[in-house]
Protein backbone atom coordinates (compact mmCIF):
# COMPACT_ATOMS: atom_id res chain seq x y z
CA UNK A 1 0.00 0.00 0.00
CA UNK A 2 3.00 2.22 0.27
CA UNK A 3 3.86 2.18 -3.36
CA UNK A 4 1.06 4.24 -4.78
CA UNK A 5 1.85 7.36 -6.71
CA UNK A 6 0.24 10.70 -6.29
CA UNK A 7 -3.22 10.63 -7.86
CA UNK A 8 -2.99 12.34 -11.21
CA UNK A 9 -6.31 12.25 -13.02
CA UNK A 10 -6.04 10.78 -16.44
CA UNK A 11 -6.88 13.03 -19.34
CA UNK A 12 -10.65 12.99 -19.64
CA UNK A 13 -13.50 15.15 -20.88
CA UNK A 14 -14.63 17.81 -18.55
CA UNK A 15 -17.10 16.25 -16.07
CA UNK A 16 -17.67 13.18 -18.15
CA UNK A 17 -20.17 11.68 -15.79
CA UNK A 18 -22.44 14.63 -15.39
CA UNK A 19 -26.06 14.46 -16.37
CA UNK A 20 -26.10 15.57 -19.98
CA UNK A 21 -29.41 14.22 -21.08
CA UNK A 22 -32.29 15.41 -18.98
CA UNK A 23 -33.87 11.96 -19.11
CA UNK A 24 -37.29 13.47 -18.83
CA UNK A 25 -38.66 10.64 -20.90
CA UNK A 26 -38.07 8.26 -18.00
CA UNK A 27 -39.96 10.50 -15.59
CA UNK A 28 -42.91 10.85 -17.94
CA UNK A 29 -43.07 7.13 -18.51
CA UNK A 30 -42.92 6.39 -14.81
CA UNK A 31 -45.77 8.85 -14.19
CA UNK A 32 -47.81 7.22 -16.94
CA UNK A 33 -47.29 3.79 -15.45
CA UNK A 34 -48.25 5.00 -12.00
CA UNK A 35 -51.41 6.47 -13.48
CA UNK A 36 -52.29 3.11 -14.97
CA UNK A 37 -51.78 1.51 -11.58
CA UNK A 38 -54.00 4.14 -10.04
CA UNK A 39 -56.91 3.10 -12.27
CA UNK A 40 -57.62 0.19 -9.96
CA UNK A 41 -57.84 2.59 -7.04
CA UNK A 42 -60.10 4.84 -9.08
CA UNK A 43 -62.32 1.88 -9.90
CA UNK A 44 -62.85 1.04 -6.25
CA UNK A 45 -63.51 4.70 -5.63
CA UNK A 46 -66.02 4.73 -8.48
CA UNK A 47 -67.81 1.68 -7.13
CA UNK A 48 -68.12 3.19 -3.69
CA UNK A 49 -69.37 6.51 -5.03
CA UNK A 50 -71.86 4.93 -7.39
CA UNK A 51 -73.26 2.94 -4.49
CA UNK A 52 -73.19 5.64 -1.84
CA UNK A 53 -74.63 8.68 -3.58
CA UNK A 54 -78.03 7.24 -4.53
CA UNK A 55 -78.13 5.29 -1.27
CA UNK A 56 -77.79 8.45 0.74
CA UNK A 57 -80.78 9.89 -1.07
CA UNK A 58 -82.65 6.64 -0.56
CA UNK A 59 -81.98 6.56 3.16
CA UNK A 60 -83.12 10.14 3.55
CA UNK A 61 -86.56 8.90 2.54
CA UNK A 62 -86.56 5.40 3.97
CA UNK A 63 -85.09 4.91 7.39
CA UNK A 64 -82.44 2.26 7.86
CA UNK A 65 -84.54 0.43 10.41
CA UNK A 66 -87.43 0.25 8.00
CA UNK A 67 -85.03 -1.01 5.33
CA UNK A 68 -83.36 -3.65 7.40
CA UNK A 69 -86.10 -4.82 9.70
CA UNK A 70 -89.47 -4.72 7.98
CA UNK A 71 -90.61 -7.69 6.03
CA UNK A 72 -92.28 -6.55 2.84
CA UNK A 73 -90.39 -5.71 -0.31
CA UNK A 74 -92.72 -4.23 -2.90
CA UNK A 75 -90.95 -1.31 -4.51
CA UNK A 76 -93.10 -1.32 -7.61
CA UNK A 77 -96.52 -1.34 -5.99
CA UNK A 78 -98.71 1.67 -5.64
CA UNK A 79 -97.94 1.78 -1.94
CA UNK A 80 -94.31 0.70 -2.02
CA UNK A 81 -92.71 -1.07 0.90
CA UNK A 82 -88.96 -1.22 1.37
CA UNK A 83 -88.24 -3.91 3.90
CA UNK A 84 -85.27 -5.83 2.52
CA UNK A 85 -85.62 -8.93 4.71
CA UNK A 86 -87.26 -11.02 1.96
CA UNK A 87 -84.28 -10.42 -0.27
CA UNK A 88 -81.88 -11.25 2.52
CA UNK A 89 -83.91 -14.37 3.26
CA UNK A 90 -83.76 -15.39 -0.37
CA UNK A 91 -80.02 -14.88 -0.50
CA UNK A 92 -79.66 -16.71 2.78
CA UNK A 93 -81.68 -19.79 1.81
CA UNK A 94 -80.00 -20.25 -1.53
CA UNK A 95 -76.56 -19.60 -0.08
CA UNK A 96 -77.11 -22.17 2.66
CA UNK A 97 -78.15 -24.76 0.10
CA UNK A 98 -75.19 -23.90 -2.10
CA UNK A 99 -72.57 -24.13 0.60
CA UNK A 100 -74.11 -27.32 1.95
CA UNK A 101 -73.10 -28.76 -1.36
CA UNK A 102 -69.91 -26.82 -2.03
CA UNK A 103 -68.19 -27.11 1.33
CA UNK A 104 -68.27 -30.87 1.80
CA UNK A 105 -67.69 -31.65 -1.85
CA UNK A 106 -65.09 -28.93 -2.24
CA UNK A 107 -63.17 -29.90 0.87
CA UNK A 108 -63.54 -33.57 0.00
CA UNK A 109 -62.12 -32.99 -3.46
CA UNK A 110 -59.30 -30.95 -2.03
CA UNK A 111 -58.38 -33.60 0.52
CA UNK A 112 -58.57 -36.30 -2.10
CA UNK A 113 -56.40 -34.42 -4.58
CA UNK A 114 -53.94 -33.28 -1.98
CA UNK A 115 -53.50 -36.42 0.12
CA UNK A 116 -54.71 -39.43 -1.80
CA UNK A 117 -54.72 -38.99 -5.53
CA UNK A 118 -51.81 -40.02 -7.70
CA UNK A 119 -50.22 -37.30 -9.75
CA UNK A 120 -51.81 -38.78 -12.85
CA UNK A 121 -55.27 -38.42 -11.37
CA UNK A 122 -54.45 -34.97 -10.16
CA UNK A 123 -53.29 -33.92 -13.59
CA UNK A 124 -56.55 -35.03 -15.16
CA UNK A 125 -58.93 -33.83 -12.48
CA UNK A 126 -57.54 -30.37 -11.85
CA UNK A 127 -58.13 -29.13 -15.42
CA UNK A 128 -61.65 -30.52 -15.24
CA UNK A 129 -62.29 -28.46 -12.15
CA UNK A 130 -60.87 -25.45 -13.95
CA UNK A 131 -63.33 -26.02 -16.78
CA UNK A 132 -66.13 -26.27 -14.25
CA UNK A 133 -65.11 -22.89 -12.96
CA UNK A 134 -64.93 -21.40 -16.42
CA UNK A 135 -68.44 -22.26 -17.57
CA UNK A 136 -70.47 -19.04 -17.79
CA UNK A 137 -72.97 -18.67 -14.98
CA UNK A 138 -75.90 -18.14 -17.33
CA UNK A 139 -75.29 -21.68 -18.58
CA UNK A 140 -75.60 -22.95 -15.04
CA UNK A 141 -78.83 -20.97 -14.77
CA UNK A 142 -80.20 -22.66 -17.85
CA UNK A 143 -79.14 -26.04 -16.54
CA UNK A 144 -80.79 -25.39 -13.19
CA UNK A 145 -84.08 -24.38 -14.75
CA UNK A 146 -84.27 -26.98 -17.49
CA UNK A 147 -82.45 -30.00 -16.21
CA UNK A 148 -82.35 -29.80 -12.46
CA UNK A 149 -85.91 -28.59 -11.92
CA UNK A 150 -87.64 -30.43 -14.75
CA UNK A 151 -85.77 -33.68 -14.85
CA UNK A 152 -84.53 -34.20 -11.33
CA UNK A 153 -86.54 -32.30 -8.81
CA UNK A 154 -89.99 -32.48 -10.40
CA UNK A 155 -90.06 -36.28 -10.36
CA UNK A 156 -88.86 -36.37 -6.76
CA UNK A 157 -90.92 -33.52 -5.38
CA UNK A 158 -94.01 -33.27 -7.56
CA UNK A 159 -95.33 -30.14 -5.90
CA UNK A 160 -92.22 -28.09 -6.48
CA UNK A 161 -92.58 -24.75 -8.21
CA UNK A 162 -90.99 -24.09 -11.58
CA UNK A 163 -88.84 -21.43 -9.98
CA UNK A 164 -87.43 -22.70 -6.75
CA UNK A 165 -84.53 -22.09 -4.47
CA UNK A 166 -83.45 -25.71 -4.22
CA UNK A 167 -82.55 -26.06 -7.87
CA UNK A 168 -80.65 -22.80 -7.96
CA UNK A 169 -78.88 -23.60 -4.72
CA UNK A 170 -77.80 -27.08 -5.76
CA UNK A 171 -76.45 -26.00 -9.11
CA UNK A 172 -74.74 -22.98 -7.58
CA UNK A 173 -73.19 -25.25 -5.01
CA UNK A 174 -71.53 -27.38 -7.63
CA UNK A 175 -70.49 -24.27 -9.51
CA UNK A 176 -68.63 -23.08 -6.43
CA UNK A 177 -66.83 -26.37 -5.74
CA UNK A 178 -63.70 -25.34 -7.72
CA UNK A 179 -63.41 -22.10 -5.75
CA UNK A 180 -63.49 -23.89 -2.41
CA UNK A 181 -61.39 -26.81 -3.62
CA UNK A 182 -58.53 -24.82 -5.10
CA UNK A 183 -58.05 -22.54 -2.13
CA UNK A 184 -58.36 -25.41 0.34
CA UNK A 185 -55.88 -27.44 -1.69
CA UNK A 186 -53.45 -24.51 -1.74
CA UNK A 187 -53.65 -24.37 2.03
CA UNK A 188 -53.04 -28.08 2.39
CA UNK A 189 -50.11 -28.20 0.02
CA UNK A 190 -48.51 -25.43 2.04
CA UNK A 191 -48.35 -27.79 4.99
CA UNK A 192 -44.76 -29.07 5.06
CA UNK A 193 -44.26 -32.66 4.02
CA UNK A 194 -42.30 -33.20 7.20
CA UNK A 195 -45.47 -33.04 9.24
CA UNK A 196 -47.08 -35.75 7.17
CA UNK A 197 -43.96 -37.88 7.17
CA UNK A 198 -43.85 -37.64 10.93
CA UNK A 199 -47.37 -38.98 11.16
CA UNK A 200 -46.76 -41.77 8.65
CA UNK A 201 -43.63 -42.78 10.47
CA UNK A 202 -45.71 -43.27 13.59
CA UNK A 203 -47.92 -45.68 11.72
CA UNK A 204 -50.81 -43.38 10.94
CA UNK A 205 -52.90 -44.09 7.89
CA UNK A 206 -53.50 -41.49 5.24
CA UNK A 207 -56.96 -40.94 6.61
CA UNK A 208 -55.70 -40.31 10.11
CA UNK A 209 -52.95 -38.05 8.84
CA UNK A 210 -55.33 -36.07 6.68
CA UNK A 211 -57.89 -35.65 9.43
CA UNK A 212 -55.63 -35.13 12.41
CA UNK A 213 -52.52 -33.50 10.98
CA UNK A 214 -53.05 -31.85 7.63
CA UNK A 215 -56.49 -30.34 8.02
CA UNK A 216 -55.79 -28.81 11.43
CA UNK A 217 -52.51 -27.45 10.15
CA UNK A 218 -54.19 -25.90 7.13
CA UNK A 219 -57.26 -24.82 9.01
CA UNK A 220 -57.07 -21.08 8.49
CA UNK A 221 -56.62 -21.57 4.76
CA UNK A 222 -59.50 -24.02 4.65
CA UNK A 223 -61.75 -21.62 6.51
CA UNK A 224 -60.64 -18.93 4.07
CA UNK A 225 -61.80 -21.19 1.25
CA UNK A 226 -65.20 -21.62 2.89
CA UNK A 227 -65.57 -17.89 3.42
CA UNK A 228 -64.66 -17.22 -0.18
CA UNK A 229 -67.20 -19.79 -1.32
CA UNK A 230 -69.91 -18.17 0.77
CA UNK A 231 -68.99 -14.79 -0.62
CA UNK A 232 -69.27 -16.08 -4.15
CA UNK A 233 -72.64 -17.63 -3.43
CA UNK A 234 -73.96 -14.39 -2.00
CA UNK A 235 -72.77 -12.40 -4.99
CA UNK A 236 -73.94 -14.73 -7.74
CA UNK A 237 -76.62 -13.32 -10.01
CA UNK A 238 -77.42 -15.29 -13.14
CA UNK A 239 -78.22 -18.67 -11.64
CA UNK A 240 -80.75 -17.23 -9.23
CA UNK A 241 -82.20 -14.82 -11.75
CA UNK A 242 -82.95 -17.62 -14.17
CA UNK A 243 -83.90 -20.43 -11.83
CA UNK A 244 -85.18 -19.01 -8.56
CA UNK A 245 -87.75 -16.59 -9.82
CA UNK A 246 -88.26 -12.92 -9.22
CA UNK A 247 -90.81 -12.85 -6.42
CA UNK A 248 -89.63 -11.55 -3.07
CA UNK A 249 -90.58 -14.24 -0.63
CA UNK A 250 -89.85 -14.21 3.07
CA UNK A 251 -89.60 -17.93 3.65
CA UNK A 252 -87.23 -20.72 4.45
CA UNK A 253 -88.94 -23.19 2.16
CA UNK A 254 -86.52 -24.23 -0.56
CA UNK A 255 -89.26 -25.53 -2.78
CA UNK A 256 -90.56 -22.06 -3.40
CA UNK A 257 -89.17 -19.40 -5.63
CA UNK A 258 -87.57 -16.34 -4.11
CA UNK A 259 -85.74 -13.21 -5.06
CA UNK A 260 -82.26 -12.47 -3.82
CA UNK A 261 -80.41 -9.20 -3.47
CA UNK A 262 -78.55 -9.88 -6.70
CA UNK A 263 -81.57 -10.89 -8.76
CA UNK A 264 -83.47 -7.85 -7.52
CA UNK A 265 -80.69 -5.57 -8.74
CA UNK A 266 -80.60 -7.32 -12.10
CA UNK A 267 -84.37 -7.31 -12.55
CA UNK A 268 -84.99 -3.77 -11.40
CA UNK A 269 -82.10 -2.27 -13.36
CA UNK A 270 -83.07 -3.98 -16.59
CA UNK A 271 -86.70 -3.04 -16.26
CA UNK A 272 -88.37 0.30 -16.75
CA UNK A 273 -87.43 2.30 -13.71
CA UNK A 274 -87.21 6.04 -14.02
CA UNK A 275 -83.94 7.55 -12.92
CA UNK A 276 -84.09 9.51 -9.72
CA UNK A 277 -87.12 7.71 -8.41
CA UNK A 278 -87.09 5.89 -5.11
CA UNK A 279 -87.35 2.55 -6.85
CA UNK A 280 -84.26 3.42 -8.88
CA UNK A 281 -82.38 4.35 -5.75
CA UNK A 282 -83.45 1.17 -4.02
CA UNK A 283 -81.28 -0.68 -6.54
CA UNK A 284 -78.23 1.06 -5.15
CA UNK A 285 -79.29 0.63 -1.55
CA UNK A 286 -79.54 -3.11 -2.05
CA UNK A 287 -76.27 -2.97 -3.99
CA UNK A 288 -74.61 -1.22 -1.10
CA UNK A 289 -75.83 -3.87 1.31
CA UNK A 290 -74.54 -6.59 -0.99
CA UNK A 291 -71.18 -4.87 -1.40
CA UNK A 292 -70.70 -4.41 2.33
CA UNK A 293 -71.50 -8.05 3.07
CA UNK A 294 -69.22 -9.48 0.38
CA UNK A 295 -66.47 -6.98 1.16
CA UNK A 296 -66.45 -8.00 4.81
CA UNK A 297 -66.29 -11.68 3.88
CA UNK A 298 -63.49 -11.12 1.36
CA UNK A 299 -61.48 -9.12 3.87
CA UNK A 300 -61.87 -11.97 6.34
CA UNK A 301 -60.82 -14.50 3.73
CA UNK A 302 -57.72 -12.51 2.77
CA UNK A 303 -56.75 -12.20 6.42
CA UNK A 304 -57.05 -15.93 6.91
CA UNK A 305 -54.98 -16.63 3.81
CA UNK A 306 -52.28 -14.29 5.02
CA UNK A 307 -52.31 -16.14 8.32
CA UNK A 308 -51.61 -19.52 6.83
CA UNK A 309 -49.07 -18.13 4.37
CA UNK A 310 -47.17 -16.58 7.22
CA UNK A 311 -47.17 -19.76 9.21
CA UNK A 312 -45.38 -21.71 6.55
CA UNK A 313 -43.24 -19.17 4.76
Amino acid at each position, binding site marked *: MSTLAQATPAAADDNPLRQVKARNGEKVIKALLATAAAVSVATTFGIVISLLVPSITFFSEISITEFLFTTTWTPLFANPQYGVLPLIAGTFVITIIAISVAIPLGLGSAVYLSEFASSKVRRTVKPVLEVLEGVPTV*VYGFFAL*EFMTQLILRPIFPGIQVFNALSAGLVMGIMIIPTVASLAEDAMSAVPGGLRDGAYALGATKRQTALRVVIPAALSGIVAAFV*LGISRAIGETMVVTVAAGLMPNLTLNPFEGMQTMTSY*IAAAASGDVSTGSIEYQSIFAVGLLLFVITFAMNALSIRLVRKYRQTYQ
Partner: protein
Amino acid sequence: MTATIATTPSPAPESTLEGHGQPLIDKTFRWILFAATAVGIVFLAVLIVYVTLKGLPRLTPALWQNMPSIRNPDTAGAQSAITGTIWVMAFTALTALPVGILSAVYLEEFGNAKSRFQRVVDINIQNLAAVPSVVFGILGLAIIARAFQLGQTVITAGLTLGLLVLPVVIISTRESLRAVPQNIRHGSLALGATQWQTTWKQTMPAAIPGMATGTILALSRAIGEAAPLLLLGAVSFISFNPTGPFSAYTTMPIQIFNWTKNPREEFQILAAALIVLLLVLLLAMNAVAILIRNRTQRRW
Protein backbone atom coordinates in the same frame (compact mmCIF):
# COMPACT_ATOMS: atom_id res chain seq x y z
CA MET B 1 -21.06 -81.65 19.17
CA THR B 2 -23.52 -79.37 20.73
CA ALA B 3 -23.72 -76.11 18.91
CA THR B 4 -24.22 -72.93 20.78
CA ILE B 5 -26.33 -71.68 18.00
CA ALA B 6 -29.98 -71.90 18.74
CA THR B 7 -31.82 -74.03 16.27
CA THR B 8 -35.19 -72.56 16.91
CA PRO B 9 -35.89 -68.90 16.20
CA SER B 10 -36.71 -66.77 19.20
CA PRO B 11 -40.43 -66.44 19.78
CA ALA B 12 -42.02 -63.61 17.85
CA PRO B 13 -42.90 -60.50 19.79
CA GLU B 14 -46.46 -59.82 20.72
CA SER B 15 -47.35 -57.76 17.72
CA THR B 16 -46.59 -58.97 14.23
CA LEU B 17 -46.29 -56.86 11.15
CA GLU B 18 -49.87 -57.55 10.24
CA GLY B 19 -51.89 -54.45 10.17
CA HIS B 20 -54.49 -54.28 12.82
CA GLY B 21 -55.83 -50.87 11.91
CA GLN B 22 -59.23 -50.15 10.55
CA PRO B 23 -58.78 -50.87 6.87
CA LEU B 24 -62.51 -50.70 6.22
CA ILE B 25 -62.79 -47.19 7.58
CA ASP B 26 -59.76 -46.06 5.66
CA LYS B 27 -61.03 -47.53 2.45
CA THR B 28 -64.48 -46.08 2.95
CA PHE B 29 -63.01 -42.71 3.69
CA ARG B 30 -60.99 -42.79 0.52
CA TRP B 31 -64.03 -43.77 -1.50
CA ILE B 32 -66.10 -40.99 0.00
CA LEU B 33 -63.48 -38.49 -0.98
CA PHE B 34 -63.26 -39.94 -4.45
CA ALA B 35 -67.02 -39.70 -4.77
CA ALA B 36 -66.91 -36.08 -3.66
CA THR B 37 -64.37 -35.34 -6.37
CA ALA B 38 -66.33 -37.31 -8.92
CA VAL B 39 -69.52 -35.34 -8.37
CA GLY B 40 -68.08 -32.27 -10.02
CA ILE B 41 -66.75 -34.25 -12.94
CA VAL B 42 -69.96 -36.17 -13.47
CA PHE B 43 -71.94 -32.96 -13.22
CA LEU B 44 -69.85 -31.33 -15.91
CA ALA B 45 -70.24 -34.34 -18.16
CA VAL B 46 -73.99 -34.40 -17.67
CA LEU B 47 -74.23 -30.70 -18.34
CA ILE B 48 -72.29 -30.92 -21.57
CA VAL B 49 -74.21 -33.93 -22.82
CA TYR B 50 -77.58 -32.47 -21.88
CA VAL B 51 -76.95 -29.13 -23.48
CA THR B 52 -75.57 -30.71 -26.64
CA LEU B 53 -78.44 -33.13 -27.03
CA LYS B 54 -81.04 -30.49 -26.35
CA GLY B 55 -79.52 -27.97 -28.68
CA LEU B 56 -78.69 -30.42 -31.45
CA PRO B 57 -81.69 -29.64 -33.65
CA ARG B 58 -80.65 -26.01 -33.92
CA LEU B 59 -76.91 -26.45 -34.24
CA THR B 60 -77.05 -25.41 -37.85
CA PRO B 61 -75.48 -22.58 -39.80
CA ALA B 62 -78.76 -20.70 -39.27
CA LEU B 63 -77.55 -20.12 -35.76
CA TRP B 64 -74.93 -17.67 -36.90
CA GLN B 65 -76.46 -16.63 -40.14
CA ASN B 66 -79.83 -15.45 -38.91
CA MET B 67 -80.98 -12.79 -36.54
CA PRO B 68 -83.07 -13.52 -33.45
CA SER B 69 -86.79 -13.38 -33.91
CA ILE B 70 -89.61 -13.74 -31.44
CA ARG B 71 -92.29 -14.44 -33.96
CA ASN B 72 -90.40 -17.01 -35.99
CA PRO B 73 -88.37 -19.21 -33.72
CA ASP B 74 -87.85 -21.70 -36.53
CA THR B 75 -85.67 -19.31 -38.41
CA ALA B 76 -84.19 -17.42 -35.50
CA GLY B 77 -80.44 -17.22 -35.15
CA ALA B 78 -77.96 -15.41 -32.94
CA GLN B 79 -75.92 -13.40 -35.37
CA SER B 80 -76.47 -10.13 -33.55
CA ALA B 81 -75.31 -11.74 -30.32
CA ILE B 82 -72.23 -13.24 -31.92
CA THR B 83 -71.10 -10.03 -33.57
CA GLY B 84 -72.06 -8.12 -30.44
CA THR B 85 -69.82 -10.39 -28.40
CA ILE B 86 -66.92 -9.77 -30.75
CA TRP B 87 -67.38 -6.01 -30.61
CA VAL B 88 -67.70 -5.93 -26.82
CA MET B 89 -64.70 -8.24 -26.39
CA ALA B 90 -62.62 -5.96 -28.58
CA PHE B 91 -63.34 -3.00 -26.35
CA THR B 92 -62.90 -5.07 -23.22
CA ALA B 93 -59.43 -5.99 -24.40
CA LEU B 94 -58.70 -2.40 -25.35
CA THR B 95 -59.58 -1.33 -21.84
CA ALA B 96 -58.10 -4.10 -19.77
CA LEU B 97 -54.87 -4.85 -21.62
CA PRO B 98 -53.07 -1.52 -21.76
CA VAL B 99 -54.15 -0.50 -18.27
CA GLY B 100 -53.52 -3.94 -16.82
CA ILE B 101 -50.15 -4.54 -18.41
CA LEU B 102 -48.84 -1.07 -17.64
CA SER B 103 -50.10 -1.35 -14.06
CA ALA B 104 -48.29 -4.64 -13.66
CA VAL B 105 -45.12 -3.17 -15.17
CA TYR B 106 -45.29 -0.29 -12.73
CA LEU B 107 -45.86 -2.53 -9.73
CA GLU B 108 -43.11 -4.99 -10.64
CA GLU B 109 -40.43 -2.85 -12.30
CA PHE B 110 -40.79 0.76 -11.29
CA GLY B 111 -42.61 0.91 -8.03
CA ASN B 112 -41.11 0.80 -4.62
CA ALA B 113 -42.52 -2.32 -3.04
CA LYS B 114 -42.77 -0.73 0.36
CA SER B 115 -44.36 2.55 -0.64
CA ARG B 116 -47.80 3.45 0.57
CA PHE B 117 -49.07 3.87 -2.97
CA GLN B 118 -48.04 0.37 -3.93
CA ARG B 119 -49.65 -1.17 -0.89
CA VAL B 120 -52.89 0.68 -1.55
CA VAL B 121 -52.88 -0.49 -5.16
CA ASP B 122 -52.19 -4.08 -4.12
CA ILE B 123 -55.09 -4.09 -1.68
CA ASN B 124 -57.37 -2.56 -4.28
CA ILE B 125 -56.56 -5.20 -6.84
CA GLN B 126 -57.25 -7.96 -4.33
CA ASN B 127 -60.59 -6.41 -3.43
CA LEU B 128 -61.68 -5.79 -6.97
CA ALA B 129 -60.98 -9.40 -7.84
CA ALA B 130 -63.66 -10.46 -5.39
CA VAL B 131 -66.40 -7.89 -5.99
CA PRO B 132 -69.63 -9.48 -7.32
CA SER B 133 -70.01 -8.89 -11.04
CA VAL B 134 -73.41 -7.27 -10.64
CA VAL B 135 -71.77 -4.50 -8.61
CA PHE B 136 -69.56 -3.79 -11.62
CA GLY B 137 -72.81 -3.42 -13.47
CA ILE B 138 -73.84 -0.76 -11.01
CA LEU B 139 -70.54 1.02 -11.57
CA GLY B 140 -71.05 0.84 -15.31
CA LEU B 141 -74.62 2.06 -15.09
CA ALA B 142 -74.11 4.94 -12.70
CA ILE B 143 -70.78 6.26 -13.84
CA ILE B 144 -69.91 5.08 -17.32
CA ALA B 145 -73.36 5.01 -18.90
CA ARG B 146 -74.87 7.94 -17.03
CA ALA B 147 -72.19 10.22 -15.59
CA PHE B 148 -69.85 9.87 -18.57
CA GLN B 149 -72.92 9.86 -20.80
CA LEU B 150 -71.72 6.98 -22.88
CA GLY B 151 -75.15 5.40 -22.78
CA GLN B 152 -76.07 1.80 -23.25
CA THR B 153 -73.54 1.10 -25.91
CA VAL B 154 -70.76 -1.24 -26.92
CA ILE B 155 -68.13 1.03 -25.47
CA THR B 156 -69.83 1.17 -22.08
CA ALA B 157 -69.95 -2.61 -22.00
CA GLY B 158 -66.31 -2.81 -23.01
CA LEU B 159 -65.19 -0.38 -20.34
CA THR B 160 -67.26 -2.07 -17.63
CA LEU B 161 -66.13 -5.58 -18.44
CA GLY B 162 -62.59 -4.31 -18.94
CA LEU B 163 -62.54 -3.02 -15.38
CA LEU B 164 -64.06 -6.27 -14.18
CA VAL B 165 -61.27 -8.40 -15.62
CA LEU B 166 -58.53 -5.86 -14.91
CA PRO B 167 -57.33 -7.72 -11.79
CA VAL B 168 -56.93 -10.91 -13.83
CA VAL B 169 -54.69 -9.16 -16.34
CA ILE B 170 -52.64 -7.43 -13.65
CA ILE B 171 -52.08 -10.55 -11.58
CA SER B 172 -51.09 -12.78 -14.48
CA THR B 173 -48.84 -10.14 -16.05
CA ARG B 174 -47.07 -9.60 -12.73
CA GLU B 175 -46.39 -13.30 -12.49
CA SER B 176 -44.96 -13.44 -15.97
CA LEU B 177 -42.72 -10.44 -15.28
CA ARG B 178 -41.53 -11.99 -12.05
CA ALA B 179 -40.52 -15.11 -13.91
CA VAL B 180 -37.94 -13.18 -15.95
CA PRO B 181 -34.59 -13.65 -14.17
CA GLN B 182 -33.09 -10.65 -12.48
CA ASN B 183 -29.71 -11.00 -14.14
CA ILE B 184 -31.21 -10.21 -17.53
CA ARG B 185 -32.22 -6.83 -16.18
CA HIS B 186 -28.82 -6.38 -14.58
CA GLY B 187 -27.07 -7.22 -17.82
CA SER B 188 -29.08 -4.58 -19.62
CA LEU B 189 -28.58 -1.89 -16.98
CA ALA B 190 -24.85 -2.60 -16.82
CA LEU B 191 -24.63 -1.64 -20.50
CA GLY B 192 -25.97 1.82 -19.78
CA ALA B 193 -29.62 1.20 -20.58
CA THR B 194 -32.26 3.09 -18.65
CA GLN B 195 -34.88 1.36 -16.55
CA TRP B 196 -37.55 1.82 -19.21
CA GLN B 197 -35.28 0.66 -22.01
CA THR B 198 -34.53 -2.46 -20.00
CA THR B 199 -38.21 -3.07 -19.27
CA TRP B 200 -39.43 -2.40 -22.79
CA LYS B 201 -36.67 -4.15 -24.72
CA GLN B 202 -35.79 -7.05 -22.46
CA THR B 203 -38.16 -7.78 -19.61
CA MET B 204 -41.49 -7.33 -21.36
CA PRO B 205 -40.58 -9.24 -24.54
CA ALA B 206 -39.41 -12.12 -22.38
CA ALA B 207 -42.74 -12.08 -20.55
CA ILE B 208 -44.95 -12.07 -23.64
CA PRO B 209 -46.10 -15.71 -23.48
CA GLY B 210 -47.27 -15.20 -19.91
CA MET B 211 -49.04 -12.01 -20.90
CA ALA B 212 -50.75 -13.77 -23.78
CA THR B 213 -52.14 -16.52 -21.60
CA GLY B 214 -53.24 -13.91 -19.08
CA THR B 215 -55.09 -12.06 -21.81
CA ILE B 216 -56.90 -15.18 -22.90
CA LEU B 217 -57.79 -15.94 -19.29
CA ALA B 218 -59.27 -12.48 -18.88
CA LEU B 219 -61.24 -12.62 -22.11
CA SER B 220 -62.55 -16.08 -21.26
CA ARG B 221 -63.94 -14.63 -18.10
CA ALA B 222 -65.41 -11.57 -19.77
CA ILE B 223 -67.02 -13.41 -22.64
CA GLY B 224 -69.33 -15.33 -20.32
CA GLU B 225 -70.43 -12.39 -18.18
CA ALA B 226 -74.10 -11.48 -18.28
CA ALA B 227 -74.97 -9.86 -14.95
CA PRO B 228 -73.23 -6.52 -15.48
CA LEU B 229 -74.63 -6.26 -18.97
CA LEU B 230 -78.16 -6.77 -17.72
CA LEU B 231 -77.78 -3.46 -15.98
CA LEU B 232 -76.32 -1.87 -19.07
CA GLY B 233 -79.27 -2.33 -21.32
CA ALA B 234 -78.12 -5.35 -23.27
CA VAL B 235 -81.30 -7.18 -22.41
CA SER B 236 -83.46 -5.34 -24.91
CA PHE B 237 -84.30 -7.12 -28.09
CA ILE B 238 -81.48 -6.53 -30.54
CA SER B 239 -81.67 -8.00 -33.99
CA PHE B 240 -78.95 -6.10 -35.74
CA ASN B 241 -75.17 -6.19 -35.69
CA PRO B 242 -73.44 -3.35 -33.86
CA THR B 243 -72.69 -0.48 -36.16
CA GLY B 244 -69.94 1.10 -34.11
CA PRO B 245 -68.71 1.68 -30.59
CA PHE B 246 -71.75 3.80 -29.77
CA SER B 247 -74.20 1.30 -31.05
CA ALA B 248 -76.68 -0.76 -29.08
CA TYR B 249 -75.74 -4.41 -28.83
CA THR B 250 -76.39 -7.78 -27.35
CA THR B 251 -74.02 -10.59 -26.46
CA MET B 252 -74.17 -14.37 -26.47
CA PRO B 253 -74.74 -14.81 -22.72
CA ILE B 254 -77.50 -12.21 -22.82
CA GLN B 255 -79.15 -13.87 -25.79
CA ILE B 256 -78.97 -17.18 -23.98
CA PHE B 257 -80.61 -15.49 -21.01
CA ASN B 258 -83.36 -14.01 -23.16
CA TRP B 259 -84.16 -17.30 -24.82
CA THR B 260 -84.03 -19.16 -21.52
CA LYS B 261 -86.63 -16.83 -20.07
CA ASN B 262 -89.05 -17.63 -22.86
CA PRO B 263 -91.14 -20.63 -21.80
CA ARG B 264 -91.67 -21.92 -25.32
CA GLU B 265 -89.75 -25.09 -26.01
CA GLU B 266 -88.34 -23.84 -29.33
CA PHE B 267 -86.52 -21.10 -27.52
CA GLN B 268 -85.17 -23.50 -24.94
CA ILE B 269 -83.62 -25.47 -27.77
CA LEU B 270 -82.18 -22.30 -29.28
CA ALA B 271 -80.73 -21.38 -25.91
CA ALA B 272 -79.08 -24.79 -25.64
CA ALA B 273 -77.64 -24.50 -29.14
CA LEU B 274 -76.17 -21.09 -28.44
CA ILE B 275 -74.74 -22.43 -25.18
CA VAL B 276 -72.95 -25.13 -27.13
CA LEU B 277 -71.51 -22.51 -29.45
CA LEU B 278 -70.33 -20.43 -26.51
CA LEU B 279 -68.74 -23.43 -24.81
CA VAL B 280 -66.94 -24.41 -28.02
CA LEU B 281 -65.61 -20.90 -28.30
CA LEU B 282 -64.36 -20.99 -24.71
CA LEU B 283 -62.78 -24.37 -25.28
CA ALA B 284 -60.95 -23.05 -28.34
CA MET B 285 -59.65 -20.05 -26.40
CA ASN B 286 -58.35 -22.21 -23.59
CA ALA B 287 -56.75 -24.62 -26.03
CA VAL B 288 -54.85 -21.71 -27.54
CA ALA B 289 -53.72 -20.62 -24.10
CA ILE B 290 -52.44 -24.10 -23.28
CA LEU B 291 -50.71 -24.29 -26.65
CA ILE B 292 -48.93 -21.02 -26.01
CA ARG B 293 -47.89 -22.11 -22.57
CA ASN B 294 -46.48 -25.40 -23.79
CA ARG B 295 -44.65 -24.10 -26.81
CA THR B 296 -42.88 -21.30 -25.04
CA GLN B 297 -41.64 -23.08 -21.95
CA ARG B 298 -38.37 -21.32 -21.55
CA ARG B 299 -35.59 -22.94 -19.61
CA TRP B 300 -33.97 -20.02 -17.89
